[in-house]
């Protein structure tokens, strides 16, 4: 029974990682850059939804919608102001800019909302009880897993079937060739950021609902874990990010329960190292040799 309970905590935590990792992977796959500010967009999503619910007293669905809208606009703004001017700059410059944006968002949040941790009101409360109450699964865990699967499937269909999705894949393979074929590369990248940031806001709401505390640094650690998950599953691959996130969550939970709470993180990263030694492109990643 405890095992099931550990497994469920793991899947629930893993689903949050997976949703964040999907955002990372989308942006990396298309723009070939690591958007380290992704974790902080999550935090902004958390604050916007919390304020909508508590200060404005609006219903949950408005809060979710508003958080998504604000984060989408924020994502497009970040891309347009910070990353677009560096489109032809070396990738290291873009990486450092991303770290800068991350600090900018954290410190802005510090100024606007203050540093004191706030308690987040979960979007849904309560739990299902199974086996005479020996096992309880919170509704928020179930919701997280469902949302995660839906997003993963929707994204896969979007990138493989829709016209915009095809444009994204074309940009991902070869930007110059895509442009020659009449695809607006800049617009496509902006769209990717918009989708990634909307996902981040959903992740923020689910993260804060499961682990109900919110402060300006809330997004940074899950952001790093999710980046690990994306690499684990194969960065650039949508099902890979999903698989990586879920596995990371389960390994973390079970390591905490059966090996040692002190070694949980070490175990997670040891597994990551082993996977990358065997499959350098991650679990579902494709190894693309450099064209010379």
């Amino acid at each position: 029974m405890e095992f099931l309970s550990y497994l469920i905590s793991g899947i629930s935590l893993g689903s949050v990682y997976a949703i964040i990792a999907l955002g990372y992977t989308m942006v990396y796959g298309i723009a070939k850059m690591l958007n380290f500010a992704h974790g902080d967009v999550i935090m902004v999503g958390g604050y916007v939804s919390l304020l909508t619910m508590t200060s404005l007293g609006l219903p949950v669905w408005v809060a979710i919608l508003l958080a998504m809208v604000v984060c989408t606009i924020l994502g497009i703004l970040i891309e347009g102001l910070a990353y677009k001017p560096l489109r032809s700059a070396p990738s290291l410059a873009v990486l450092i800019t991303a770290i800068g944006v991350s600090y900018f968002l954290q410190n802005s949040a510090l100024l606007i909302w203050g540093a004191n941790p706030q308690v987040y009101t979960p979007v849904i409360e309560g739990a299902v009880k199974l086996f005479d109450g020996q096992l309880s699964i919170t509704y928020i865990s179930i919701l997280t897993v469902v949302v995660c699967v839906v997003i993963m499937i929707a994204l896969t269909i979007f990138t493989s079937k829709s016209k915009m999705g095809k444009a994204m894949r074309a940009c991902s393979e070869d930007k110059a060739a895509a442009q020659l074929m009449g695809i607006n590369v800049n617009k496509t990248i902006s769209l990717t950021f918009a989708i990634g940031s909307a996902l981040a806001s959903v992740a923020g709401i689910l993260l804060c609902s499961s682990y109900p505390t919110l402060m300006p640094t809330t997004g940074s650690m899950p952001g790093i874990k999710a980046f690990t998950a994306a690499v684990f599953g194969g960065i650039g691959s949508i099902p890979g990010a999903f698989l990586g996130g879920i596995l990371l969550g389960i390994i973390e939970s079970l390591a905490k329960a059966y090996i040692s709470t002190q070694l949980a993180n070490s175990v997670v990263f040891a597994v990551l190292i082993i996977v990358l030694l065997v499959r350098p492109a991650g679990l579902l990643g494709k190894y693309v040799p450099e064209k010379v």
Partner: protein
Amino acid sequence: MKRILALLVAVVMCASMFVGCGSKDDGNTLKIGGIGPITGDAAIYGQAVMNGCKIAVDEINAAGGIGGLQIEFKFEDDVNVAETSVTAYNKLMDWGMDILVGTVTTTPCISVSEKIYEDRVFALTPSASSTDVTKGKDNMFQLCFSDPNQGTGSATYISANMADKKIAVIYRNDDAYSQGIRDTFVAEANAKNLSIVYEGTFTADTATDFSVQLTAAKAAKADLIFLPIYYQPASVILAQAKAMDYAPTFFGVDGMDGILTMKNFDTKLAEGVMVLTPFSADAQDDRTVNFVKKYKELYKEVPNQFAADGYDCIYAVKAAYEKAGCTKDMKAEELCAALVKAIKEISFDGLTGTSMTWSDKGEVNKMPTAVVIKDGVYVSAEAK
């Protein structure tokens, strides 16, 4: 090159004109500095200490000051980061600080106390509780219980009042404060034959999900969870325990203080939580009643233990200063030596205990008591 050199020399000369100004003194004030987090994730502690200190300073100044000197009080933010804390200390030294009340949190205080020892400044921390704060430093004193005292105090209290409980401990093992209390708690609990059925840890990186630790504690049939941690992770633990219908007695130490003033915190979650603390705002003695009334008027909330610690620190400094018969013309080093000698001779009555005395090690001796949270306020555990 020559021109740059000339410019540089000019700048240095201009700067040197201001050097003397910082420490210029009018001779009629005693400068007491304070350091603690007033922003950041431990902000509630620093703010409470600062507010408590200010009340004491205003009272003393209105009553004629310390030995005829008015107190000038300045509080610097350190965000609970050691490097920032040392910078804040240097800033206060430039300002001409005579005595330090601080720093508020443990890890920064360990760094700052090294500087204090080198510079020979008398310091009394309201709440940095590790023994590393005072170890080997004769001019650094604590007003709060040291970590060993909190750990042993908790174990003693539990064995006296709830000896048959099965205990689980969840602590943060990358934090000197949490680890220190856990170590002495476990040692004392074993000596007293208490049964500890589960121990779980977390770090700053894994402080989001506690469901695994809680499930394991529940599986081990623990009915008391000892939490020697700060209030922010504690609030998550309480929420997650409720979500899984697990309702043991939660027992915290001074780091738990502040949980009730967290924004949006549902105080129902903390119902029945016990906290080992030397101060409870519902005590009926004149000193506490008067302090709580003033604090509520000024800051619109019920003071916690940290506010009381800050208040007591200022009065303890006053008691030591007057006992030693210090005067303003004493040099910094003489003042420090006189205060170090005097604080070990006084017996001080304050909000956080009566007949407090200080040992050579810099630790305070006072009795631990416990409070329990009922309807969102602390009430004395004995009165339950």
